[in-house]
């Protein structure tokens, strides 16, 4: 064999090997999530693809209902889906998700037990959702409008801030906020009339109903907002990423907590890749970068939270046991209740016009 020929042979065999390896490893991995919510960060996807060889493809939903519909109508299309824990039970009862083999996801060992074993994510001793991140829905304030940060939810009703209060345009969130303000359990609202009255008295204070993080931040930047309902992850993004004078307040009356999990749909074609992706998503390396670069909710992985810088909001404030005692985690909501809340919310919005 002369030299050029040998080189050609070697190159060819390398090429073939490369193609074969590519065919085996570079399987597509379809992920379904909210847009701009961690899994689709370019740097993260690139790092994961490089390490695992899987080719990540994203699809998005705009509401939990849409997510469920996409799972129902496209069985076998998705490999990983992000499901709010309050909806995991519904997805399971409809047979939309399959048990996750936790032994393939080493990082699960570091997830706090109360989340890993949450009855919302587990059934019959099997795990149907791997806890990913959690966060709070409470109030955030414009620091310029307060000499001292408020400690009570009643600040929203304070005449001094009339016309500078915002609420999210979401029926469930509004009603649960009203439940906390009237000292009720958000998952078992006994006196909806009281919630309605409390919210009705808040409406004249309200300037606008916000829909997106960007809207909220702009209102702070232009001095139109003193206090409003907000999400903990968004407040930390407003502060770290956009340098806005925003402070997240965890009122003494309590806060709404939510937990987002990652699940594998029934009929997923790339289960092995899905497990690798979920493992990466709860890895401290990914989480620290996400929180410091972009701002994130709190990782379910205790080691990931501990790896944050000491001043990080998600580590200091949300790691505080006193705060933990005030959190009421969102449980599943029945369709009938959902419709009741929506009607109540729409009526309130029309009445205040």
């Amino acid at each position, binding site marked *: 064999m002369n030299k050029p020929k040998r080189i050609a042979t070697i190159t060819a065999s390398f090429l073939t090997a490369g193609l074969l390896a590519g065919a085996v490893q570079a399987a597509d991995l379809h992920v379904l999530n909210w847009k701009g919510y961690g899994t689709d960060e370019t740097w993260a996807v690139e790092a994961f693809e490089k390490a695992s060889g899987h080719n990540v493809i994203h699809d998005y939903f705009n*509401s939990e*209902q849409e997510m469920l519909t996409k799972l129902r109508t496209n069985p076998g299309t998705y490999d990983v889906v992000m499901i709010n824990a309050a909806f995991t039970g519904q997805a399971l009862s409809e047979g939309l998700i399959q048990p996750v083999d936790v032994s393939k996801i080493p990082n699960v060992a570091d997830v706090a037990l109360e989340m890993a074993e949450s009855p919302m994510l587990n059934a019959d001793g099997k795990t149907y959702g791997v806890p990913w991140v959690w966060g709070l829905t409470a109030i955030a304030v414009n620091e310029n409008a307060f000499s001292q940060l408020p400690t009570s939810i009643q600040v929203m009703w304070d005449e001094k801030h009339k016309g500078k209060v915002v609420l999210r345009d979401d029926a469930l969130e509004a009603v649960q906020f009203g439940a906390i303000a009237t000292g009720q359990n958000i998952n078992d609202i006994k006196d909806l009339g009281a919630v309605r009255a409390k919210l009705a008295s808040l409406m004249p204070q*309200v*300037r606008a*109903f916000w*829909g997106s993080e960007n809207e909220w931040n702009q209102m702070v930047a*232009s001095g139109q907002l003193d206090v409003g309902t907000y999400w903990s992850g968004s407040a930390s993004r407003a502060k770290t990423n956009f340098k806005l004078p925003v402070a997240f307040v965890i009122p003494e009356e309590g806060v709404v907590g939510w937990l987002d999990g990652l699940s594998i749909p029934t009929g997923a074609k790339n289960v092995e890749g899905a497990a690798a992706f979920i493992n990466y998503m709860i890895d401290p390396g990914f989480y620290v970068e996400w929180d410091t670069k972009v701002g994130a909710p709190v990782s379910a992985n205790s080691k990931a939270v501990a790896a944050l810088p000491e001043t990080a909001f998600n580590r200091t404030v949300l790691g505080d046991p006193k705060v933990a005692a005030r959190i009421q985690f969102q449980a599943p909501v029945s369709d009938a209740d959902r419709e009741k809340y929506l009607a109540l919310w729409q*009526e309130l*919005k029309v009445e205040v*016009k």
Partner: protein
Amino acid sequence: MPQTDVSQRASTGPRSQWRPALPLLLPAYLWLTVAIFLPLSAMAFFSFMTELPLSGKPWAFTLANYAAFFEKSFYAVLLRDSLRLALEVTLWCALLGFPCAYVLAKILKGRSREAIFLLVILPFWSNGLVRVFSWAIALRGNGLLDRTLNAILPFQVNVDLMFSYPAIVIGLVHSYLPYMVLTCYLTLQAIDDSLIEAARSLGASRFTVLRRLIIPLSLPGLVAGSVLIFVPVVGSFMEPRILGGRAGTFYGTVIEDQFVAVFNWPLGAALSFILLAVVLIILGAASPILKRAA
């Protein structure tokens, strides 16, 4: 030979006029069927269902979605508000657009007309969402409008129109004004200048000329512009939502909620068809006036 040809063509009469027309009509009508008729009939179908068939849940036919409109009083309130909003926006567009169209058609000539025309059409070239957000920057307290006025005026004013009913009207008028200017311009331009000169020379005042000559003759344009504006504004949701704040709940935003937020397409579709019916009834009731005008 040529003669028989002519007689043949004459004998086939009205049917033969379809042959050359068909290839020209087909693309547009095929497109309309695919792009408008099919989705609209799918929506009509959805509006009678208990569940979206896409949702995978069992479904049945029902009238409950239409009944919902009558069960909750706030739908009717919102519909009334939306109709009032559309009426106000149309009136403002007419008040602002007609004089502008008159100047364009009758007073300006040549390059200056082109320049002014360009300014009128300019809003059309920008994305609707961009327009609304730029209004948000202009209208809010300490915003562009507030600062500019305070820089010019000797006394302090506090302009904060953001998140109010006027903000919605301003945003909508800005978006739809070009329709009124363009339709009025076309009819105004068609008025023969010598008619106006004749009236003037016979001693009619400027106001009489306007009242007896120009407005009646340009009425078709005014009417066409009004219909073009009224119909989409009744169902508008983007401008109210972004500029209206607490005052921004309208019939259109409630329909949007059903589609986007709560995923209740059947109810959203039913509400849309009720809106369509109401608009058709209004146009139908107004049609004698519209016909006389046209």
